[in-house]
């Protein structure tokens, strides 16, 4: 008996919990307007109307409550809308809506991975399957509140309805404001007062219902279903179930694409960097918030601007380590724009970020001091603004025998800590003796050289004359003779004394080829150059 009881308990535990199905519908009305207004908080108190269509046939497609109060209606032409005082007209932007839509879905996806998107007119809806999320987000009311707060932070004003029926949640969210939670088995009562226009009715059905005096979903639900089907056909059964809040639905989940992208289309071209940065600050805020929600940072930030005249402007800012500091990223952006200003006023701005792992570095107690990565980035950007883009960095020697060849690379300390750990046990071997160091003349200074028996004995640099006390050479060097950037020169290590008694050790280079040697027997006025000074 005892073993049977235990078995019974195990069976009970293994039995999956039967959670009732629950949907939360997030409805964003006037989405074209919300998409444009999202990054511009100063427009929230203004009467706004969005125009779509090609000029001059433009009509109002979306508007806010302030515009409604002023008498604006959907479908109004531009001429009619312009006659309304205090109404601000904006052009509809598909790119802006696309970016806003992905952010809208991404924000909602933080609460449930299963969601379905729907679109009706200028409204956008997203229905989340929130079954079994009570332990994560609390009861449906709390989840809805948090969902609305998250979307408000992303710049969207939404209404939310929670119901056990997919369509009931969708219809209720579209018809109400704020948060509504429909109790189980109360769908019909909750939908009863909603206008029948919410249903996507065929024109003949709408006309029939109008003739019958059916104006609400409650009135439609009260009709006997068999007689309704007999008069209007099979489709009437679906309408009846919709009105009762009992129509079943096969959920078709979509996967929200995670792309850190923000877009802003300006009404008039912007030519001041301050104005541009003001908008960019808001965009960076949104990007940082979205990346932080996934415990990520911004590894790079790409600016893409459409300029007046059809030109494009594209720059990429890469911090040394992924960052979430808005001020720091904005400063990098500002310095980049200051170093490479756009050549024409800006019509639209797109910021695309690449996500990276969070910027946490393990610091060592005994590690030597290093520049703070974020501060170093700003410093290097400022240095580049002072000295030039390609004149700040770390030198890297080229794999060639050409004297003095190197290239500049970006200075980075990101790998130094790891390198320190790697090389701590095997430090680089320092030279046992001190080395003579060259100071290069860039460009080399032409000198007049006096020769005796093909050997330099004196040279003159500008007004200074030097008597050569020792000349070591010639050291002939050549290369790349097969291409246009070949070189062929002879080098001389020179010890000399000037007329005022100063000693100098230098490197003279004669780029004369052997064919011209006869011409350079005594003097060569053009090909001898002071290449470097030993110092």
């Amino acid at each position, binding site marked *: 008996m005892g073993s049977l009881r235990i078995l019974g308990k195990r069976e009970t535990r293994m039995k999956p919990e039967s959670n009732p199905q629950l949907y939360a519908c997030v409805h964003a009305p006037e989405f074209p307007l919300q998409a444009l207004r999202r990054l511009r908080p100063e427009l929230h108190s203004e009467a706004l109307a969005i125009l779509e269509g090609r000029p001059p046939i433009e009509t109002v497609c979306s508007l806010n409550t302030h515009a409604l109060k002023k008498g604006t209606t959907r479908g109004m032409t531009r001429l009619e809308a312009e006659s309304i005082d205090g109404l601000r007209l904006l052009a509809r932007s598909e790119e802006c809506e696309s970016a806003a839509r992905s952010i809208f879905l991404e924000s909602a996806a933080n609460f449930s991975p299963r969601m379905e998107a729907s679109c009706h007119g200028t409204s956008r809806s997203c229905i989340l399957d929130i079954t079994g999320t009570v332990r994560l987000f609390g009861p449906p009311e709390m989840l809805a509140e948090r969902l609305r707060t998250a979307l408000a932070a992303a710049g969207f004003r939404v209404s939310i309805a929670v119901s056990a029926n997919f369509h009931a949640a969708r219809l209720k969210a579209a018809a109400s404001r704020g948060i509504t939670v429909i109790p189980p088995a109360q769908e019909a009562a909750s939908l009863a007062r909603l206008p029948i226009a919410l249903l996507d009715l065929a024109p003949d059905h709408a006309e029939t219902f109008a003739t019958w005096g059916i104006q609400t979903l409650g009135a439609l639900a009260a009709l006997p279903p068999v007689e309704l089907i007999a008069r209007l056909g099979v489709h009437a059964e679906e309408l009846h179930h919709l009105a009762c809040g009992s129509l079943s639905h096969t959920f078709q989940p979509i996967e929200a694409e995670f792309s850190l992208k923000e877009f802003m289309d300006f009404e008039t071209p912007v030519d001041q960097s301050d104005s541009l940065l003001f908008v960019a600050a808001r965009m960076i805020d949104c990007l940082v918030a979205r990346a932080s929600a996934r415990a990520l940072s911004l590894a790079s930030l790409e600016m893409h601007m459409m300029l007046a005249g059809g030109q494009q402007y594209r720059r990429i800012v890469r911090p040394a380590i992924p960052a979430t500091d808005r001020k720091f990223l904005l400063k990098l952006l500002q310095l980049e724009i200051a170093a490479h200003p756009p050549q024409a006023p800006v019509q639209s701005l797109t910021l695309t970020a690449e996500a990276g792992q969070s910027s946490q570095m393990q610091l060592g107690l005994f*590690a*030597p*001091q*290093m*520049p*703070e990565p974020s*501060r*170093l980035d700003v*410093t*290097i950007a*400022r*240095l580049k603004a*002072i*000295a*030039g883009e390609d*004149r*700040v*960095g*770390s*030198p*890297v*020697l080229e794999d060639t025998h050409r004297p*003095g060849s*190197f290239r500049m690379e970006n*200075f980075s*300390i990101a790998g*130094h800590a790891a*390198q*320190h750990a790697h*090389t*701590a046990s095997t*430090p*680089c*071997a*320092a*030279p*046992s*003796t*001190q*080395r*003579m*160091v*060259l*100071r*290069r*003349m*860039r460009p080399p200074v032409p000198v007049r050289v006096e020769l005796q028996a093909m050997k330099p004995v004196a040279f003159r640099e500008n007004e200074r004359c030097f008597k050569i006390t*020792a000349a*070591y050479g010639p050291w002939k060097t050549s290369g790349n003779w097969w291409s246009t950037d070949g070189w062929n020169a002879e080098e001389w*290590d020179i*010890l000399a004394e000037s007329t005022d008694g*100063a*000693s*100098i*050790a*230098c490197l003279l280079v004669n780029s004369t080829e052997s064919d011209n040697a006869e011409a350079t027997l005594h003097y060569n006025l053009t090909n001898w150059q002071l290449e*470097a*000074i*030993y*110092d």
Partner: protein
Amino acid sequence: MPSATALRLQIEHALERRFPAALTPTPRTIRDCAATGIPAVDKLLDGGFPVGAISEITGPASSGRTSLALSFLAQRSQEERVCAWVDADDTFDPESAAAGGMDLQKLLWIRCRTTSGPANTNSLAHLEQALRATDLLLQAGGFGALVLDLAAAPPENGYRIPLTTWFRFRQAADRTRCSLLVLARSPLAQSSAAVVLECAPACSATRSQTVLTGYSYQLRSGRQRFAPTISGERKPPASTWAASASWEREKRA
């Protein structure tokens, strides 16, 4: 008979109005210093260049200023510290630096921009850029050593740098624990410099009649602000050191 302590107190008390604590040596802060890697110079400087202070290396061309500065940077880079070279006239040679043991990955090189215009105007523009770059790097902090290379700049341009600039550099270097080396033809930082070394060429260390094998340099300490004064010991006022050509090592190997 009064003891020596009592006698000293009595004398100090008598001279108090004119010379406070006349016979009591003032306590000195022991400054941290970093070795240059050249024994003769380290001996002359009591360990190396001071950390968090300005050191000036002055002298004419071919006096070993750059070799000395690069040797110091190479030592700092061996300690896994990052360094910076602010090059007012774009004369730094990365090949020489690498041959001297400098880890180029740990070196931030700022080549001041060449602008069109008269030579003197260019030189002043380079100088201004170099000073601004130095200021930024010192304020950023984290660099073990920073070289401000004004060795090719005319001295009259260097004298135009206000003393307040050097004072600011000194404060920033002290705060960020950065050794700031200034290469110039003559001393510029005046009282803000903790160390001033005067370099001069000595002779070539020729072992061969066909190849330049090395060069020796003279060194004199013009100023050492934090050097401890020990009675009875006179430091050598000058020193010499030698540098070999980069191919000399390969020959030995």
